[in-house]
């Protein structure tokens, strides 16, 4: 009883505020990703993209969202109603959950407290990310299954097999990074790169494999087989309408944002400001300003990754199913294994 009374309410408040801010930012970023996606798609096809709603089309995401909200909510007769609603909810939830372990900056001093700009610095950070990403396929599976539609089910099966196949090389490529840092903690992984060489330069092949797998995990082109508009009529969200469809699409964009953040964190130094010594900077302009600059730096890296995601989407056609499986099992896994073994040998030799 006495222990219960000793709850640190400041701590709870701090985390609640941090969580709401991060969720808000994720939603905002996802919203504007849709606009950027359409803009970049336009530019790559010699068009302008949406530019009528507000200056330069700034209000387009609001208009799109408003449209989705006002559409009729349809649940097919033959669908399993509970699972049908659960599908988009799970997709959204798992998309958001990964952001918990990403360090968005170092610490700030607010009202005498040292606030870590990370929701939970758990010692199995990388494993947690894997677990949540693997959960993400449940959104697709449940959505596809409960629609009671052949195309949706087919798409869901594709999605599940794709995510499982590409999780393997993703994990193997990460093991090499974990050998370098010796820790699963996200903060430790960033700490190892802070004011030092980014993991990308030690692990270019590992990064490449991770990147390809991240594309597959996000169901983005060229790996968008689960939604394949032209073959499966939009795949697992075929029967969905209104904001339930919006949730699925939104979850996809949040996934893109989060996986960009993960890639930036693991391979490109996370919140480290490039070409600047962060500790010296903190000493000269104060810890809080430095932390904000670090958050900005991370977001610039994320923005570049998001642009890359979009760039690839509007360049490459979708893989055939057999190409997808061949690439995953016969190309990426052997490459990831070789990369892992070489890293292991080099790490052992240097430790001597």
């Amino acid at each position: 009883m006495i222990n219960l009374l000793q709850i640190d309410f400041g701590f709870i408040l701090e985390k609640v505020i941090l969580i709401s801010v991060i969720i808000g930012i994720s939603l905002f970023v996802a919203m504007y990703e849709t606009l950027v996606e359409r803009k970049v798609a336009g530019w790559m096809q010699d068009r302008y993209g949406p530019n009528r709603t507000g200056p330069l089309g700034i209000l387009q995401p609001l208009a799109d969202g408003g449209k989705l909200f006002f559409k009729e909510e349809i649940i097919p007769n033959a669908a399993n109603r509970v699972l049908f609603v659960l599908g988009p909810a799970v997709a959204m939830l798992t998309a958001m959950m990964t952001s918990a372990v990403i360090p968005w900056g170092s610490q700030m001093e607010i009202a005498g407290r040292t606030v870590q700009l990370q929701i939970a610095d758990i010692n199995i950070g990388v494993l947690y990310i894997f677990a949540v990403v693997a959960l993400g396929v449940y959104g697709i599976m449940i959505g596809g299954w409960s629609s009671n539609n052949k195309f949706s089910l087919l798409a869901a099966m594709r999605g599940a097999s794709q995510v499982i196949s590409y999780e393997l090389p993703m994990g193997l490529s990460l093991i090499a990074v974990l050998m370098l840092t010796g820790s699963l903690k996200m903060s430790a992984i960033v700490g190892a790169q802070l004011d030092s060489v980014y993991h990308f330069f030690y692990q270019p092949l590992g990064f490449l494999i991770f990147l390809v797998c991240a594309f597959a995990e996000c169901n983005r082109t060229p790996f968008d087989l689960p939604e394949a508009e032209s073959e499966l009529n939009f795949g697992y969200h075929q029967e969905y309408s209104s904001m339930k469809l919006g949730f699925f699409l939104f979850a996809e964009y949040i996934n893109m944002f989060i996986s960009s953040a993960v890639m930036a964190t693991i391979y490109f130094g996370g919140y480290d400001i490039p070409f600047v010594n962060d500790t010296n900077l903190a000493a000269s302009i104060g810890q809080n300003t430095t932390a904000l600059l670090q958050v900005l730096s991370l977001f610039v890296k994320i923005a570049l990754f998001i642009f890359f995601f979009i760039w690839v989407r509007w360049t490459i056609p979708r893989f055939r199913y057999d190409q997808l499986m061949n690439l995953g099992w016969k190309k990426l896994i052997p490459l990831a294994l070789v990369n892992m073994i070489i890293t292991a040998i080099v790490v052992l030799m240097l430790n001597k």
Partner: protein
Amino acid sequence: MERLTDKAKQVDRRPMTFLESLYLWNIAKGMGITLKHIFKKKVTIQYPEERREFSPVFRGLHVLNRDEEGRERCTACGLCALSCPAEAITMEAAERQPGEEHLYREEKYAARYEINMLRCIFCGFCEEACPKDAIYLSETFAPANYQRKGFIYNKQDLLIPHPKENPEDYKRAKGEIENRKK
């Protein structure tokens, strides 16, 4: 067989090497192309602000012509209605009364003249059939309407503005027609 051009390319059917089967180089090439397109000039015409010019032979909405003094040229001979393959034109003739010489050029005129723009196929046969140069197709098109009856254009809608009372509108309506005749 003798080749007509040297553009035909032998298809390479060799199995892909391991590096090729990762598709990396080809993807990089493709991304280079799309990146180049980002900086290219956009082909979009921003419609309400910018408009593409019609071709000089464009056949649009009909105009009933007047002569230099602003008298209607149409004599309701019915040749346009006869030539019309879509049967879009109807008219009623009337005789010119004394004192109406400033309104109608000849003794007979069209009291009612209607073109159904939903039937019209804008072939321009009416313009070719007209012996009096009274009808021609302009460089505008029929604007959208909510009702079918809005597409039945009567004489008031079709008649060109008066050249003396409203010279600017007349000039604009006349448009490129003079150039086209040459």
